[in-house]
């Protein structure tokens, strides 16, 4: 009698929204310049489905970064073009699956796409890769929970707006924050996130950049 409820795997659907205030900085490698955005940010929406220890989710976020001086260089299969005084729109898409191998620690795989679009210029760049990572949380009390994740993409492809491969890259991301449970359905969160990208183009130029962000978010979650 007492085991009935526990025998049923709980299914939960969660919708989330996230606002990031971020800065994008890096260097264009040999022969290039350092760059740093003066303002930037992204807004994201996500959905997650969890059944027992398994979860899957989709995250999309988009925003723009303004570079008054030097900006990331643009690469095509045959050329490298300097860039400055430009606004770059960045769109992130994550499709992930994960499993809580321990009660509060999960391992996940994430197919990640990052598209950088030089606004007002006919150039886009997409980085696509499969990453793996680990996430976890620590409940502090009934209301507060700490959470964090770390993951990396060992190898991803970089393509230009004509879908030509222009290079390869790696990436890692680190995120930490806290969640406040308003009640059983409403949750707010805040934290920090840093993402590092190391690109190597076909002409052997190495371009690195980092995006650091503070974020706040809201999740609406309910059992199915």
């Amino acid at each position: 009698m007492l085991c009935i409820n526990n025998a049923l795997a709980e299914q939960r659907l969660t919708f989330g929204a996230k606002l990031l205030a971020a800065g994008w900085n890096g260097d264009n490698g040999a022969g290039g310049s350092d760059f740093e955005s003066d303002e930037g940010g992204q807004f994201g929406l996500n959905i997650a489905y969890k059944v027992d220890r398994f979860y899957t989710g989709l995250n999309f976020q988009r925003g723009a970064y303004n570079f008054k001086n030097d900006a990331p260089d643009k690469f095509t299969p045959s050329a490298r073009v300097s860039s400055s005084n430009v606004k770059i729109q960045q769109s992130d898409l994550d499709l992930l699956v994960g499993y809580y191998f321990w009660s509060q620690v999960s391992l996940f795989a994430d197919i990640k796409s990052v598209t950088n679009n030089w606004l007002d210029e006919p150039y886009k760049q997409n980085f696509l890769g499969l990453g793996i990572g680990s996430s976890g949380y620590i409940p502090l009390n009934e209301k507060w929970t700490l959470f964090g994740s770390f993951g990396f993409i060992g190898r991803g492809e970089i393509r230009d707006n004509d879908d030509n491969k222009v290079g390869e890259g790696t990436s890692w991301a680190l995120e930490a924050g806290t969640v406040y449970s308003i009640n059983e359905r409403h949750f707010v969160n805040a934290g920090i996130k840093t993402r590092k990208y190391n690109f190597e183009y076909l002409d052997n130029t190495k371009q690195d950049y980092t995006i650091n962000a503070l974020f706040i978010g809201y999740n609406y979650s309910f059992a199915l």
Partner: protein
Amino acid sequence: MRNPIIKQTLGIVVAMLCFYSSVSHDVLAADSRGITIEKTVNTQGSNINRGVYRALIIGNNQYQDQQGKWQSLTTAITDAREVARLLAEQYGFSDIKLLENATRRDVLFALEDLANRSLKNDNVLIYYAGHGFLDDETNKGFWVPVDADGDDHTTFLRNSTIRDEVSSIASRVQHTLLISDSCFSGSLLRTASRGITEADYTEKYFEKVSNKKSVQIMAAGGFEYVDDDYRESGHSPFTYFLINELKTNNSPMFTVSQLSGNVERAVANNVDQVPESGVLQGAGDELGEFIFIKMDVAVEGVDPDRVKVEVNVIPGEDARKDTIIIEQKPPLTKQKVVPIPTL
């Protein structure tokens, strides 16, 4: 299912209870003048009710409500455990079922089970600690089980259902006491005074009320909200003072009227909450009294080893060994919703 062997119960008793026929500590203190206080096994001669003491103790902390209306409590299980321990160790309850984080079905099943195993002369106590709910429009009260779903009243336990179940138990036994430590629990009862003053607590009185049927209720509050944790004691205010009264009581016989009066005053004096007590309407109360028999009363000037109080136990069973049967839900993993990780 009834247990036929229970009919052969040993009686309450003791020399002390016999002495208590004159109910005077002066007489008890006469031990120093050569009167020996020791256990008497004679039960036939006692006029005090000789039933077994049974209890169903329910404590609900971990509410599963996905709609967020019923937040988890912090003290209900602690309250329930302490009440169960106290009844077993100090008041001779030999049949206690402790139900933690009970669903609606669990509660109904346990009440039915309790009714089935209770016998004619038994004394049955039902204790509930958990959320309560009052429908403002209909003025109907409810217990809220851990599987309650938001505002869906059909997932609650309606007062009328509780009354029916308790009435079913009361129809089988001599004394029934329902203690409800939840919001709006006063909606369960009808206030009734037994008209007894402090001076009336004589052996004659105890005999009289013991042999009359009783169906009594103690409620943590009337039509009001009640607190969860009292001064970080780990107990609700009502149960804190209930436990305190039961612990500090030094009378071998202690009626619910005495207990409820003391608890009501203590709670009302300390928090913004007024407990109520009375009878369960329509359940056959005959102005009897549920009597708590304290096992370890101290008698001034008498060696504690020589003061022995016993209440009836179930023959053939080791009353001390398995007095409390715990039905405990595995701890629920409190649902923690964290943002999905991304790279």
